[in-house]
C-alpha cells in the first residue's frame, strides 16, 4: 500500500465505525502501541471531520500482558497505557496496524480490562494478514493481505517513520 | 587590693609599653576613654584626664587564664565568680575560662547560660567551658552544639579523665562540628591508682603511693593520636612530665591543631618540695622530678607548650588541713602566677625575654580560644596589666584575694609584681 491507499483505508474505516455504531457519543478509540496510536488519532480526526463528533482516545501498552512472558523477557519501549476516562457504557474500538496471530489483541483485551468494563469491544486494523492462533477477528479491516508464514507485513506511518507505506516482505533462506 | 571604677578619662603615663600582639616594645602613654583604648604611645594629652604615673613599669595586655576553677555553682564556700574575679585581678588576669566540674557540673546549655549571665556582674571576662560528658560520668556526650551556642568556648571533663578511649574519640569527632578545643585531664585512672604524688625516689622515701609519669603520657599519647585521626582540636592541660612533652613535640610537627598549657607550679617546684608533706603541693597531675621540670621549661622556650594556665583550684581549709592522703588536690594560683613564672622563666633560669613571657600569658592563650588578641587597638574595651617585672616580693596571706588560701608560696620570694589591672571599666590596685 502506498500513502494514498493508507489514507483511503483510514477514511473507509472511519465511516464503517460510525455506521456500525449509530451514535458516535458512546464510541471511544483505543490505540495499541506503537503504530495503533497514531492510527487511532487519524481515525479520531477523520470522524470529527465527517460527523463533528469528538471521540475520546486512549492508548495501551501490552508489554506486561504478553502471553509469552514465560519464554521472553521484554523491556517496555513506551511509557505505558493511558486510558484517562471511564469505559462504562462505552463501545471501545481497539485500533492496531496489523492483525496476525491475534495474541496482541488478546493481551490488549487483558490490559483494557484493568481499566474497566466496556459495554462492547470492537477491533479496527489497517491490515489483516491472516494466520490466527487464537479465536480473534477484526470488525473493521483496511486491507486483507493474505500471507505465508515466512512473509512479514511491515507498516510505516508518517507519524512514526518517513511516510505511509505498507510492505510485504519475503524472507529468503 | 583596691578595686575602683575607672575614671572617664585615664592616662597611664611614662610606661614601657609592651604590645605582645604586634611584638613591639616602646615608651609611651596609654589613654583610656570610657574604659576603652583611645590612644597608645604618643597621645595627645586630653585636659582633665586622671593620670597614673607608670615610670619604671610595664604597661601590657591583661592576662588570660584558660584554666581556673571558680566553684560556682555548688561550692561557693571555696570560691565564687566574684571572689575568683578578685583573685584574677590581683594576678593581672582580665579574662579566664572556668572549668565545669562544679555541682552540678556545667553540662547543659542552661548551666552555661547561668555562668554567662552571672559573669556579666563580674569585673573580668569569664568564659564557661562545658563538660564533655553528662554529669562528667564518661558515658554520654553533652549537648555540645547547644552549649556552644550559649557561650561554651571549649569542652572538658577536667578533674576527671575521659578514661574510655571510644568516648574520647566520639567527643573529639563531635567537637569538630563546633571547631572548639577538647581539653582532657590526661591521667590513666588505672595507672595512677591511689597515687598522691609523683612516683619517684621522693615518693619511695616518703612512703606515699606514687602516680607515675606514664599515667599521664600514655593518655596524652592516646589523645594526640585520636586528635590527629579525627581532625579535632586538642588542648592538653597542665602538662607535667617530660614524656608528655616528647609526645606533644613530636605530634605538633604533623598536627597544628594541638595546643598545650603548663601551670606555674609545675615550672616552679619539683617533687623534693613535697618532703615537707605540705598538702598545698598536692596537685593533679602531681609535681614531678627536677628532670621533668627542666623539660617543661625547655618546652615553654621552644614553643611545644603554648601558654601558661594556673589551674587555680581553691579548697577550704578543712579540705587541705588534713592528712596527705585525704587532702583535696589543687592549689590557688592566680595571685602568685606572674611572680613565679617571671622568676623561673625570665630572671633566673631560661632567660626568656619578658616579651615572650607576656605572650605566653596574653596572646597565646587568647589565640587558642579565638578571643581578640590585639588589645591595644583604638576602641577596644581595655584589658591592661601594669607590671613591675624586676621587683622581688615575698608572697604572704595579704596577697591572697581568693576566698580560699591553699597556696604553697607563702614565704617564697617571687620576682615580678602586678601593680594594677584594668578590666571591664574597673581598675584594681595591689
Amino acid at each position, binding site marked *: 500500500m502506498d500513502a494514498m491507499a493508507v489514507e483511503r483505508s483510514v477514511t473507509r474505516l472511519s465511516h464503517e465505525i460510525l455506521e456500525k455504531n449509530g451514535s458516535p457519543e458512546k464510541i471511544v478509540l483505543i490505540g495499541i502501541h506503537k503504530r495503533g496510536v497514531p492510527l487511532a488519532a487519524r481515525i479520531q480526526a477523520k470522524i470529527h471531520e465527517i460527523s463533528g463528533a469528538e471521540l475520546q482516545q486512549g492508548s495501551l*501498552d501490552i*508489554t*506486561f*500482558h504478553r*502471553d509469552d*512472558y*514465560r*519464554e*521472553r*523477557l*521484554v*523491556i*517496555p519501549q513506551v*511509557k*505505558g*497505557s*493511558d*486510558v484517562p476516562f471511564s469505559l462504562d457504557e462505552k463501545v471501545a474500538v481497539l485500533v492496531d496496524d496489523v492483525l496476525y496471530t491475534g495474541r496482541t489483541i488478546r493481551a490488549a483485551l*487483558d490490559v483494557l*480490562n*484493568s*481499566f*474497566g468494563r466496556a459495554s462492547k469491544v470492537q477491533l479496527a486494523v489497517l491490515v489483516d494478514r491472516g494466520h490466527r492462533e487464537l479465536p480473534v477477528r477484526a470488525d473493521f479491516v483496511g486491507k486483507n493481505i493474505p500471507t505465508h508464514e515466512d512473509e512479514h507485513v511491515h507498516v510505516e506511518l508518517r507519524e512514526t517513520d518517513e511516510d505511509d507505506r505498507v510492505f510485504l516482505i519475503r524472507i529468503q533462506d | 587590693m583596691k578595686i575602683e571604677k575607672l575614671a572617664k578619662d585615664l592616662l597611664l603615663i611614662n610606661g614601657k609599653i609592651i604590645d605582645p600582639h604586634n611584638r613591639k616594645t616602646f615608651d609611651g602613654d596609654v589613654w583610656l576613654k570610657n574604659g576603652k583604648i583611645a590612644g597608645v604611645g604618643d597621645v595627645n594629652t586630653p585636659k582633665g584626664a586622671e593620670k597614673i604615673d607608670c615610670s619604671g613599669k610595664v604597661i601590657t595586655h591583661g592576662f588570660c587564664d584558660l584554666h581556673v576553677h571558680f566553684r560556682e555553682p555548688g561550692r561557693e564556700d571555696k570560691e565564687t565568680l566574684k571572689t575568683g574575679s578578685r583573685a584574677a585581678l590581683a594576678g593581672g588576669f582580665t579574662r579566664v575560662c572556668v572549668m565545669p566540674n562544679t555541682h552540678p557540673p556545667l553540662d547543659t546549655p542552661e548551666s552555661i547560660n547561668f555562668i554567662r549571665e552571672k559573669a556579666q556582674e563580674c569585673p573580668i571576662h569569664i568564659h564557661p567551658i562545658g563538660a564533655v*560528658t*553528662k554529669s562528667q560520668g564518661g*558515658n*554520654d*556526650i*553533652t*549537648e*555540645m*552544639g*547547644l552549649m556552644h*551556642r550559649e557561650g561554651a568556648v571549649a569542652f572538658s571533663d577536667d578533674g576527671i579523665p575521659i578514661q574510655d578511649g571510644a*568516648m574520647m*574519640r*566520639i567527643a573529639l*569527632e*563531635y*567537637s*569538630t*562540628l563546633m571547631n572548639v578545643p577538647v581539653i582532657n585531664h590526661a591521667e590513666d585512672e588505672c595507672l595512677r591508682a591511689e597515687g598522691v604524688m609523683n612516683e619517684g625516689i621522693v615518693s619511695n622515701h616518703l612512703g606515699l603511693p606514687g602516680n607515675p609519669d606514664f599515667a599521664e603520657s600514655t593518655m596524652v599519647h592516646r589523645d594526640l593520636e585520636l586528635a590527629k*585521626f*579525627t581532625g579535632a582540636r586538642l588542648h592538653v592541660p597542665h602538662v607535667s612530665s617530660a614524656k608528655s612533652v616528647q609526645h606533644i613535640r613530636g605530634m605538633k610537627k604533623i598536627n597544628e591543631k594541638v595546643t598545650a598549657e603548663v601551670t606555674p607550679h609545675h615550672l616552679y617546684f619539683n617533687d623534693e618540695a613535697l618532703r615537707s608533706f605540705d598538702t598545698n603541693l598536692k596537685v593533679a597531675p602531681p609535681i614531678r622530678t627536677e628532670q621533668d621540670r627542666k623539660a617543661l621549661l625547655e618546652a615553654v622556650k621552644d614553643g611545644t607548650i603554648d601558654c601558661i594556665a594556673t589551674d587555680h583550684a581553691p579548697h577550704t581549709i578543712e579540705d587541705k588541713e588534713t592528712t596527705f592522703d585525704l587532702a583535696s588536690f589543687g592549689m590557688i594560683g592566680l595571685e602568685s602566677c606572674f611572680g613565679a613564672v617571671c622568676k623561673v622563666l625570665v630572671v633566673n633560669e631560661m632567660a626568656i625575654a619578658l616579651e615572650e613571657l607576656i605572650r605566653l600569658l596574653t596572646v597565646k592563650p587568647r589565640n587558642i580560644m579565638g578571643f581578640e588578641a590585639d588589645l591595644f587597638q583604638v576602641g577596644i574595651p581595655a584589658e591592661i596589666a601594669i607590671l613591675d617585672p624586676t621587683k622581688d616580693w615575698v608572697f604572704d596571706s595579704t596577697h591572697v584575694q581568693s576566698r580560699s588560701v591553699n597556696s604553697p608560696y607563702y614565704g617564697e620570694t617571687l620576682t615580678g609584681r602586678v601593680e594594677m589591672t584594668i578590666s571591664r571599666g574597673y581598675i584594681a590596685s595591689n
Partner: protein
Amino acid sequence: MLQQKHLLGLEGYPSEDIQSIIDTAFNFREVLDRPIKKVPSLQGVTIVNLFFENSTRTRISFELAQKRLSADTVNFSSSSSSLKKGESFKDTAQNIEAMKIDATVMRHPTPGAPQHLTEFIDAVVINAGDGTHEHPTQAILDMMSLHEKFGKLKGLKVGILGDISHSRVALSNIYGLITMGVEVTLCGPPNLIPPFIRNLGVNVNYNVDEVIEWADALNVLRIQRERMGLGLVPSIREYRAMFGITKERLDHHKKEIVIMHPGPMNRGVEIDGSVADSDQAIILDQVLNGVASRMAILYLLCGGKSSEKEES
C-alpha cells in the same frame, strides 16, 4: 537482560542497568495507577520473603509488588535471637532450595548475608537490607523519585543527612548516585559519619545550612532513638537544633529544595511534621515508587523464566 543474576547491592552495579530498572519502574508506576493493578508477568513464579530482621514497610512493599505481578508469595519472619547465626542460616537456605523457589527477597542484620546465601542456593537473591551494609531497592526507589522530580539524575546535587555510619540506605544511595553521575554530600554528627567515606567520591560537610544551600534535594535519614542512650547523640533537642530539617530552618533558606525520607519518620526530631507534609517533600511518592521499582526489579530478574512444570 540485567547483567547480574542477583541484586545484592549497588556497589559496582552498572549504570545502564540502574537506568533500565528505573525506566521499567515508571511503566509499572502506570500499572499502579489503573483501577485493576495487576499484570500476569510473574505468574507461576514463587518468591520467598526471608526476613530475619523486623520490617513491616519493606516487606509489605515487596509483597504488593510480587502480588501485582501475579507471583506466588511466601513469608518467613524470624527474630535473629531465635536463630543461631551461621548454622541455621545455611539450613534455612537449603530448605528453601529444596522447595523449588524461584527467588528470595532477604533482609538480615549481618552485612554480607545475602552474598552468603547465593553460595547455598540457586534461586535469584534480592537484598532487602543486610545490616549496616546495603539496601539497594531503597536506593533505586530514591533515584527513581529523583528522576521523576527532576527529569534526570546526572548533574544533580543530593545531600544525605543523618546517622550515615549505621545507614544501609545511605551507603546504597552513595553507590547508586555516584554511578549515575550525581554529586553527593554527606552531613550529620561527625561521630556518625564513617571516617574514610570520602574515598567513595562523596563530599562531607557537617554544616547542614551550607548543605541546604548547595543541594537540589535532601535525603533525610531517621535518627534512631536507640542511639541516644549510647553516648552517640547527646539529646533529641541537640540533634534537632544542629541537624533537624525544621520549618524555621527551611524558611530561613527560602529555596526550592526537594525533601526525601526513607521512613519511618521521627516527626519533630530529624524532620518537622509540617515539612514532611509540605509540597517540597516527595515522601509519599517514594513509597509508591517503592512498589513500582520493586515490581521492575522482580520483573527484570525473574521474568522470562519458565517455572518448573510437573510432568503431566
